[in-house]
Structures are given as C-alpha cells and as structure tokens.
C-alpha cells in the first residue's frame, strides 16, 4: 500500500509539472465550454438546461484525450530504462501498475472537476436537478477510470508513446461506437452482447440521465480490473522473455 502511494504521488505530481497536462486541461475546458454555451443559447429559457450535457460531450472527448494522458505512463519508463529501476526495487509489479493508474485517475478527477464551473453557472441561471449532475459525474468518473485502464494497457505494450496513444484512441473509439453495432450486424443476440460492452451504452443511457445502475457500475469497474490485470501481466512478461 505504501509503495502504491509513493508511486501515485510521483505520477500525479508529474502531470502538474509537464505541459501536456495543462494543454489537455485547456482543450477539455474549451470544448466543454463551447458545447455548454451552445446548449445554453439554444434552450434560451424555453427549456430547462441539462446538467449532464457537457459531461456527455466530455465522455466523448475522453476517447481522444485520455490516451494522451496515459501514453507516457509505462512507455516512457520502458524507453528511458527507468522500468529496469522499478523492477529491481523491492516492489511487486502490480504496485507499479496500480500506483500509476491511480495517479492518472486522480489527474482525470481534477480535470472533470474543472467543469463544475458550468454546473455553478447553471445553478445560478435556474435551479437544475442536482441528482442528474451527481450521477453524471459519478458515471463520467468511472468512465474515465476504465478509459485510463485501456490507455495504460497500450502504453505497457510498446515503448513508443505515439503508437501507444494511437492504439488507445482506436480501442476507445471502437468501445464508444460499439453502441451502434446494431446498424451493421443482423445477429441480434450477438449485437446486444457487443453493445453491452460499449462504453457509450453503459454511460449515456444510465448515468447521464440520472440513473445509477448496478450493472453499469460493475461494468466499468470490471473493465478497470481486467485491464489492470492484463497490464500487470504485460509488465511482468518482461521477466520471462
């Protein structure tokens, strides 16, 4: 536990000392700001604003920005040779993986909490349904954790950060778009199964409309668990190669 905490602390600190994290934060706020503003202008007092709307967009953007946050996690350590240091310290491999994962997740948490400014504006304009906001944030947080686990897995797979980011984006895009699998697949049970693995269908139709569903919560936690396990295996495989 202590080891995970020490790695977590360094990893989180790393985000705040590197420019990319600020650029990502800037881009995320800009994008959600636009969509928020757009939505506000469109409704313009005719309909109540939807507190979850910026968050749905944010979830969609996560497909592209989360891999940028996770690409260095293991790829950089691998290339710089610092993984050799970590792996010869008295640490378990899973402690390295978990410390880094929680570091990235904590930064993501900071990032999505920046959008609370939109919620505050909404509350100031008219009383909104805070329950929806709460469940949308909870869902987005779990969504982010799962996306980070996916991105980190690809960062462990190779030592090139660009490749890691690209593969992560491709995987997350597929996981997001799998919601639409019914459009291309005739086999209904198979399509339903694939759809149940989609990040979008586990977020947009439950958390984002104010429903915290047990199975969808378990889904995101399960994705994290599975991919963290897989990542640990990839890191460990260096030992038997």
């Amino acid at each position, binding site marked *: 536990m202590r080891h995970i905490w*020490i790695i977590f602390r360094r990893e989180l600190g790393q985000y705040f000392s590197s420019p990319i994290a600020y650029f990502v934060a800037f881009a995320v706020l800009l994008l959600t700001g636009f969509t928020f503003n757009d939505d506000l202008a469109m409704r313009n007092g005719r309909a109540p604003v939807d507190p979850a709307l910026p968050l749905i967009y944010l979830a969609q953007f996560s497909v592209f920005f989360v891999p940028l946050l996770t690409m260095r996690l293991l790829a950089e350590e691998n290339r*710089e040779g610092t993984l050799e240091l970590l792996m010869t310290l008295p640490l378990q491999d899973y402690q390295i993986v978990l410390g880094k994962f929680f570091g990235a997740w904590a930064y993501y948490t900071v990032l999505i909490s920046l959008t609370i400014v939109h919620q505050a504006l909404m509350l100031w304009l008219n009383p909104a349904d805070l329950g929806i906001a709460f469940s949308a944030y909870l869902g987005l947080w779990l969504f982010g954790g799962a996306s980070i686990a996916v991105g980190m897995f690809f960062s462990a797979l190779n030592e090139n950060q660009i490749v890691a980011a690209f593969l992560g984006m491709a995987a997350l895009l597929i996981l997001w778009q799998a919601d639409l699998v019914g459009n291309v697949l005739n086999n209904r049970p198979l399509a339903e199964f694939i759809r149940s693995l989609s990040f979008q269908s586990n977020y947009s139709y439950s958390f984002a409309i104010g429903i915290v569903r047990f199975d969808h919560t378990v889904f995101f936690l399960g994705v994290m668990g599975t991919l963290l396990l897989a990542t640990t295996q990839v890191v460990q495989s260096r030992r038997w*190669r």
Partner: protein
Amino acid sequence: MITVESLTKRYGRFMALRGISFQAESGEILGFLGPNGAGKTTTMRILTGYMPPTSGRASVAGYDVFTDSLEVRKRVGYLPETVPLYPDMTVHGYVKYVAELRGVPHAASRADDVLRIVGMHTRRDSLIRNISKGMRQRVGLAQALVHDPQVLILDEPTIGLDPRQTLEVRDLVRSLGRTHTIMFSTHILSEAEQVCDRVAIIHRGELVAIDKPETLRDQLQKGARLFVRVGKAESAETVRKTLQNVTGVASVTVLNDGFSVEARRGVDVRPRLASVIISAGWELLELRPLAMSLEDIFLELTVREGADERL
C-alpha cells in the same frame, strides 16, 4: 555473498550465457570484464532480479534470486547501464523517491547523505535534465547506495565519462569496496586492474578466467619479459644477436627505444644480461621487467577462444 552456479540465459535462439559459475566474497570488488555483448549485463540483470535465468542458480546474500527475488532486491543496489533517471525530477527528489520506495527511514535526510558521498550535494535542487553526463552517473550511483546495500552491482559505471570523472567514480568505487561487496562491469581492462580485487573475464557467455589481476598476469605470462636499453652499441642487430645467445633467453625483439627480452620460465636472466652488456663495452641504460597488462591477457584469452571456434 554472490554465488552463481552454471547460469544460462537464452534470448530466443541466441545463447547470451552458456553456463557461468563464480562467487564473490563479502567485502570484495569483483571486476566483470568482457567485450560488449559478452553477457555482462545479462548476468547483472539476473542477479538483480530483473529477469530470471533460463537455467542454473544464483543467490545474493544467501537468498535465491528467483525464489526470494524481493529479499535479494532489498539487499542489492543496482546501477544499470543506462542510468535510470527521471529528467523532470530534481536530483534530491529523485534520490528521495528511490529511498522512499526502498522503505529507507528518514528518506529525505538519507538522500542528502548519499548525495554528499557522491559529491552531488551542491546540485541537489537542479533538475536532472540539466546536469551533465558525469553527474547523472553519480546520481545513479547515489540511488544505488541510498539503502546502504550489502551488495552493489554497477553496470559500466564509468562509460561515457571524461577522464577526471572516470577517476572520481573509480575512487568512489574503491572506497565503497571497503564496506560493500561490489560487482563492477567494464570493458576497460586497466580499470578492472586498478579497482578490483578479483577479475572475472567473460567472453561470448562463458567465463574464461577468474582470479586476482596479478595472478592472471603471472599465469599467462610464460616467462618474464624484460625491457633493456643499451647505449654506445654499433647496431641494434648486433645487440639482438648477442642478447639472444645469453643462456635462459627465449627471444629478443627490437623495439624503437630498446629491446624486449623474453626469458624462459623460472630463469632470472638479469645478472647475465647485465654482465654481457658491460663486457661488450656498451652502456646499460635501463633494465626493467615488462609486465603483461590485462589488455594482453584479455587478447590472449579471447583470441584463443576464437581459434577454438574456427577449428
């Protein structure tokens, strides 16, 4: 302190180690010598628990590197060939980070202590990206020392340093050798000769020789080699012929500034050489033993190896 028994390592179809065995005693500096690709780094990576061997056994401080990997890693300080640094951290922050991961009590002040030992304390707040290669090497060494390990494994700690830095690192290793068991790899032979108590020479994954540098030299030197400088002689050729005829002399080679005389094993030809030269009416300007350097030993051993392979 370090025991290695018939260790092999195979990368795909390539045999990096072909069954090497050796031991290093407590408080000893063992030089690990070999050309690039001989298997030095592989051996060290196995000893530090980075990867397991294909077969064979190794133990450090009484713990098996494979089954008790964590116990071994607690007791070993390791400086890999590419110094594992985080460029965005400060020198002190980095050493403290490693100290914390190693569970060293009072990590921050201990980090200051080791930075003082390696002479990097004045740069403790510099970012690692801004310090020179030699300094990085020393920060890497500080990291390896931070938990005061029983065993230090240093993979080419002087590579890429300028001559002064090289000397500093060598001095540091020598002074640490009084209290630690050190395994030190290098492909610079004179370095091993200066720093190490014993030298293990490996070549193509096999242990070619292991002994004290002096003993290695004695073993391989067939007889004593002497350097002779003669003045007032008519021609080099006459001197060569004269010296050649002295009893006990195996061969004489003409050098630029004198002669290299190889004596047969166990014969001291010096008094006879001196009297022959004097009685010929020449001047004896210099007469001293020519020691065989590790360079020669190394070439001798590895060339012999290569010859076997060609057969």
